[in-house]
């Protein structure tokens, strides 16, 4: 018997049982849908997160300070680090939450005192106006740079340079508005930046919250890390008073975690495909016993074992591959929806599509073999007598 004939027979028999065929496929449809969605979303999120961390700069080192009140660093101490031991530039910050007011509007915002190089190290982009100059910090000016969302909430526009903003009863002049941050890790959208010394005076707080250091080159990161560790230990006198976070170390950990998540989710999705395959096997077994007489007739008029085997195997593979294709189609539609909802760049890679279809075809073959073999091995006379 020719393959095209076997294919035609399989299609006819599946068409004759539309509802059952659809329900059988449903397991594979859902499995493939899950595989494509999960893998693509995790891949999308991974590249997004990795991209953002890389945007921050793999040269970046952050040291958070948690020392008691009487143990503190000054800006001058910190600036000594610049150009020493693999360190390029340094910035410092301290933040807290307070109400920001403009006219009748008010919002709870993060108030962050920063030094003038903060924007360079953290790669902040200005939408309007400018960031602080060293003069702003030294002279303790009442200038502020605000986040995108805060500008919209307070002024209804981002063209608000020159307007005044009130923080904790003090008036500041807005000198710059930041671009909308598209990072999932940190956000500056709802922040009022003010010069660090202004902040310290206003909140009567000599502490620094964190210092930010960029290494001279990616190769110098380890050296810079050592330099900071030494410096912090010398200045603060206790290892418990600070930590040093290495951006590339974070990246590695994140990569590892996302890798684990990918295999975990793929595993779960693969399990659902296997469950779908069991569904196919179940229905094929029912189909074989329902069609015992048909098999007997076919054998009586000359069908060979291989013909019957091929016919049933093709039926299960057609079921699983059709289910796989429908699942893939739904997955693509689903990804488009998620792309809109999550504001992520999600693309179904060719590899994922091939994997999903290949896996479902494999499921069809593996779970189709037993029923097909059972059908093929029926003795013609027993099959014919079957009522």
């Amino acid at each position: 018997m020719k393959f095209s004939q076997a294919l035609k027979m399989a299609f006819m028999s599946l068409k004759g049982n539309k509802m059952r065929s659809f329900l059988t496929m449903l397991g594979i449809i859902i499995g493939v849908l899950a595989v494509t969605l999960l893998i693509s979303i995790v891949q999308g999120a991974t590249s997004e997160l990795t991209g953002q961390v890389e945007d921050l700069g793999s040269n970046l080192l952050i040291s958070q300070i948690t020392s008691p009140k009487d143990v503190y660093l000054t800006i001058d101490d910190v600036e000594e680090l610049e150009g020493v031991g693999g360190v390029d530039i340094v910035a410092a910050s301290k933040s807290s939450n307070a109400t920001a007011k403009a006219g009748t509007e008010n919002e709870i915002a993060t108030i962050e005192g920063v030094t003038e190089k903060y924007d360079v190290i953290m790669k902040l982009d200005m939408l309007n106006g400018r960031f602080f100059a060293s003069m702003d910090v030294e002279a303790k000016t009442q200038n502020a740079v605000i986040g995108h969302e805060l500008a919209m909430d307070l002024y209804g526009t981002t063209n608000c340079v020159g307007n005044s903003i009130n923080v904790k009863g003090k008036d500041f002049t807005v000198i710059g508005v930041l671009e909308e941050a598209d990072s999932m890790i940190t956000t500056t959208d709802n922040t009022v930046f003010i010069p660090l010394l202004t902040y310290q005076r206003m909140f009567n707080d000599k502490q620094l919250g964190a210092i930010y250091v960029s290494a001279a080159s990616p190769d110098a990161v380890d050296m810079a890390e050592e330099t900071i560790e030494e410096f912090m230990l010398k200045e603060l006198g206790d290892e418990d008073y600070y930590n040093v976070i290495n951006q590339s170390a974070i990246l590695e950990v994140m990569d590892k975690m996302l890798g684990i998540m990918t295999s975990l989710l793929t595993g779960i999705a693969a399990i659902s495909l296997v469950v779908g395959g069991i569904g196919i096997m179940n229905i094929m077994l029912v189909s074989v016993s329902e069609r015992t007489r048909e098999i007997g007739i076919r054998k009586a008029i000359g069908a060979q074992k291989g013909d019957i085997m091929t016919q049933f195997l093709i039926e299960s593979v057609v079921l699983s591959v059709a289910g796989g294709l429908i699942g893939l189609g739904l997955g693509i539609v689903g990804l488009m929806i998620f792309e809109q909802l999550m504001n992520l760049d999600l693309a179904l890679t060719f590899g994922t599509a091939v994997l999903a279809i290949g896996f479902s075809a494999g499921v069809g073959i593996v779970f189709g073999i037993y029923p097909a073999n059972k059908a093929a091995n029926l003795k013609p006379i027993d099959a014919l007598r079957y009522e």
Partner: protein
Amino acid sequence: MIELKDIRKTYIMGETEVHALNGVSLNIDDGEFVAVIGPSGSGKSTLMNIIGCLDIADEGTYKLDGNNVNSLSEYELGVVRNKKVGFIFQQFNLLPKLTAFENVELPLIYQGLHLGERKKRAEECLNKVGLGDRMDHKPTELSGGQQQRVAIARALATEPTLILADEPTGNLDTKSGKEIMQMLVDLNKEGKGIVLITHDQWVANQADEQIKIVDGKIAVHKDKRRAAK
């Protein structure tokens, strides 16, 4: 040429052994029309199944056209069923989801013939049984007599030398039954060998030879032609 020698077939039904065939020896020449009659349970269907290679005898030898069937592989038995034998059953045994044409075409598909040849032969056979205008009908849209005629067309499609008919008129009214019998008689005149199983004496009388089976053994063997001589 069918040569059966001391054929035995035993079924185990629960704890009792049923000797369906208990030493049957029989020769049937090409082109002969033989009727096998006997009460139900006498083993006549088992005999037909063995002749048609649907079943294998436990003991004894069966030679079909000189080949020992006992030594044929499963594949070769399939080829015999496909090419040498055409079956006609009491319940017609057509595939309900296929049209008359597709049912007749099916054995040719298993032979691996290409579409043009299949179409030509299937149409020829359906025309021969007078159903040229019903080719696209499904079995459920045909009367019993018409269904049996489709089955005959299917049996003829592969141009076998032997037709095996198991109670072909058993599910038909008298008129359709007579038509089917006439068709078989005509086929025999064209040279087809026919082995027919029945418990209807009138049907059996259409054949040249009558073999009566009782309790798995040949009880009476009547030959009309020899009697006439």
